């Protein structure tokens, strides 16, 4: 991971503290962090591990676009860093970290929630679940799946 970058894809393990530090500064009193991790189950299936694939050049540009959207919606937000890991990831490993910093905590929660929702909508990254009974591409955000589809 590069220290200075704000919107990044990497195959390396994610260091949550290092990503939080990227957005910290003396005039910022609040950092809201979202950490996404690999879950051991999905829709009744036991997940062994995930394989994340990306369109890397576009994915980093769209992450930066999400950062710009946050700055427009919440001008009090001073800094945003989003790092998404791709490749093989075992259960319990961290797949994405979002850190949103501002002088005060107001808006950092909403901006963080917005970032993860937008990632699941528009960033060209896909996860394949490798389960006991086969491999399954996930397509479309879970939030778009009506509960009665399960």
């Amino acid at each position: 991971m590069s220290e200075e970058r704000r919107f990044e894809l990497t195959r390396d393990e994610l260091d949550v503290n290092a990503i939080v530090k990227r957005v910290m500064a003396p005039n910022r009193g609040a950092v809201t962090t979202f950490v996404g991790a690999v879950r051991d189950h999905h829709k009744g299936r036991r997940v062994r591990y995930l394989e994340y694939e990306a369109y890397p050049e576009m994915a980093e540009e769209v992450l930066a676009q999400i950062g710009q959207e946050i700055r427009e919606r919440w001008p009090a937000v001073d800094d945003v860093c989003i790092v998404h890991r791709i490749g093989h990831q075992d259960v319990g490993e961290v797949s994405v970290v979002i850190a949103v910093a501002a002088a005060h905590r107001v808006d950092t929660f909403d901006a963080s929630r917005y970032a993860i929702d937008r990632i699941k909508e528009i960033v060209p990254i896909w996860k394949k679940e490798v389960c006991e009974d086969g491999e399954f591409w996930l397509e479309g955000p879970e939030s778009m799946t009506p509960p009665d589809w399960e």
Partner: protein
Amino acid sequence: MKSITVRLFASLREAAGQSVVHLELENEARVVDVWDALCDSSSDLEPFHGRALVALNRRYVSTDVLLSDGDELALFPPVSGG
């Protein structure tokens, strides 16, 4: 003629059996012409026609956009990151 690079990802890449396809298309070519060319060479891609997302030079576009020489077109399923 226009030279178009097509990149395929995730389930589309697996269905096509390749991640990059180079096409030579007529001057008035649109995304639908890319689909026709791709489905001619791999019928496994047919089910994706109509629900795949389309990005032209890394930006989302609709399927009626006109293509230019040297364009990079990406076709992929709805995203599932996070």
